[in-house]
């Protein structure tokens, strides 16, 4: 069952900037759907329209079966958002933010306190509960913002770059939480600039380029679409990078031929399958020449 359906969606801001053009896709219940794109590609615009924060100017979008404009009220109680670059209030503690968010969303007092504690424990914030956020590290502050959304117990979570500022362990903790939420049937729409994050999390992804949908499918689909095959790096054993040769092989036979030749000549061979990052760069029309040369 699709919980998000977007059809021919467009957005032109009052100043005339066209941020989205004719975007169409669906997201199924319990799916982790990643939106990728360069800065200013239109990811946040799309997320904000779906989270009922921004009016679309063309096309149609429904969330949980309700139109994002006409049925916004019905949608809002069932979703939660982590906005991009959100910052906690430095004069409030982590506990204040999360407990009050539960109460503001209408939870009964006892349930609000229990829910706030549970989410804080899951995000390892409980031991920091009484510290002002001014005294927390950047990563802990970001976790406070995440917790403010997670306490909502929403059916759909909109996460706009949720792991920005987190250390590698913190990011993995959030990934585990996102996966668990998806297993429990929560649908996740996530934007990120971390391609490894999308690679690890996304059931499906959309690449937005200059407001248009440039790719829609799975991670493997994106890599296959890039059509770059496997890169074979051949270099003399003690060359310190000199004489390095990067070959692109699209079939197993090609790879085998390159490897045999390199081994005969006593060279070191490294196989590098195409990553999502390389596929992304290919899709949005960038270049990876600098890295490979």
């Amino acid at each position, binding site marked *: 069952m699709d919980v998000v359906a977007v059809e021919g969606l467009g957005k032109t801001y009052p100043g005339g900037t066209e941020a989205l053009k004719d975007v169409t896709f669906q997201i199924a219940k319990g799916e982790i759907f990643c939106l990728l794109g360069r800065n200013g590609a239109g990811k946040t615009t799309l997320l904000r329209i779906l*989270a009922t924060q921004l009016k679309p100017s063309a096309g149609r979008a429904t969330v949980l079966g309700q139109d994002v404009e006409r049925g916004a009220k019905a949608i809002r109680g069932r979703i939660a958002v982590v906005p991009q670059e959100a910052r906690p209030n430095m004069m409030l503690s982590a506990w204040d933010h999360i407990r009050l968010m539960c109460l*503001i969303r209408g939870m009964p007092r006892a349930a609000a306190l229990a829910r706030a504690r549970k989410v804080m424990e899951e995000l390892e914030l409980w031991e920091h509960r009484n510290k002002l956020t001014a005294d927390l590290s950047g990563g802990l502050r970001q976790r406070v913002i995440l917790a403010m959304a997670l306490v909502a117990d929403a059916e759909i979570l909109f996460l706009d770059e949720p792991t920005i500022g987190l250390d590698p362990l913190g990011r993995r903790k959030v990934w585990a939480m996102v996966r668990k939420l998806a297993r429990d049937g929560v649908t996740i729409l996530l934007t990120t600039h971390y391609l490894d994050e999308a690679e690890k999390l996304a059931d499906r992804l959309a690449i937005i380029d200059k407001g248009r949908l440039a790719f829609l499918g799975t991670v493997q689909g994106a890599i296959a679409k890039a059509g770059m095959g496997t890169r074979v790096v051949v270099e003399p054993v003690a060359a310190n990078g000199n004489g390095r040769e990067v070959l692109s092989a699209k079939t197993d036979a090609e790879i085998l031929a390159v490897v045999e030749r390199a081994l005969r000549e006593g060279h070191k061979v490294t196989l590098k399958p195409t990553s999502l990052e390389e596929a992304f760069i290919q899709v949005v029309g960038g270049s990876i020449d600098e890295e490979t040369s």
Partner: protein
Amino acid sequence: MKRPREVFYIGLFDSLPILRDPMLMIVISLFSFLPVLFAYIFAPQPQLAMQTIVGAIVLSLGFIGLFIAQSVYFYKYWHRFQDMFVASPVSPLSYAMGLAFSTLLGAAPATVVAFILLYLQVPYSVLALLQVLAVTVLFWLSMVFIGYTIGAVTKNTRRANSLPQVLGIVLGFLPPVYYTLDTLPPFLQPIALLIPSTNAAQLAKYYFGLISISTFEIVFGWVYLIAFVIGMGLVAVRRAHWVDP
């Protein structure tokens, strides 16, 4: 009970920092009471000093109403809490009312002290107190609407901080709020009456028995204040968006 609960918790969320660190309350109180201090020292008649206390009541509430601009701006553009509240069951009216009521906390000490001081000097009736409260609440509400509009439309942190202060001075100290209307040259008096704080102060001084004004001035004052509140309310509703266009 759902909406009042939302208003209460949004108000609490916004006012907790002030409750934890009451410096803002002290600043507002000192700011509105400085002219009172000067008037007590330099005013030739005690009646004039009384008028400055009424001015302190009007300005404390008006000034703090304008300061909603900071909450609105920071919640929308800095903390991005507004986006979180939009994507929740919270109604825009609860949000606006919660932020508005939390401003009252900042003005509470100055206002209470002023009312007590005034009562000790010129005992007033409960009716007079209610009439003055009604006038000051109307003025506060108009300032809340102006502040809300400033906070919602400005995308500049410095402007969101400085505009309420500038407006507070323009509306509070320049017009006859702390001093009497007839201190102004006759040609400036009608112009001063086009400023809402003048009308609020004139009515408050009248209900406390400090000045006498004509029935026309009373009616004009009320009509002007109500019209100003409605006008500013319409501007705020038009310019402050819950869902961005």
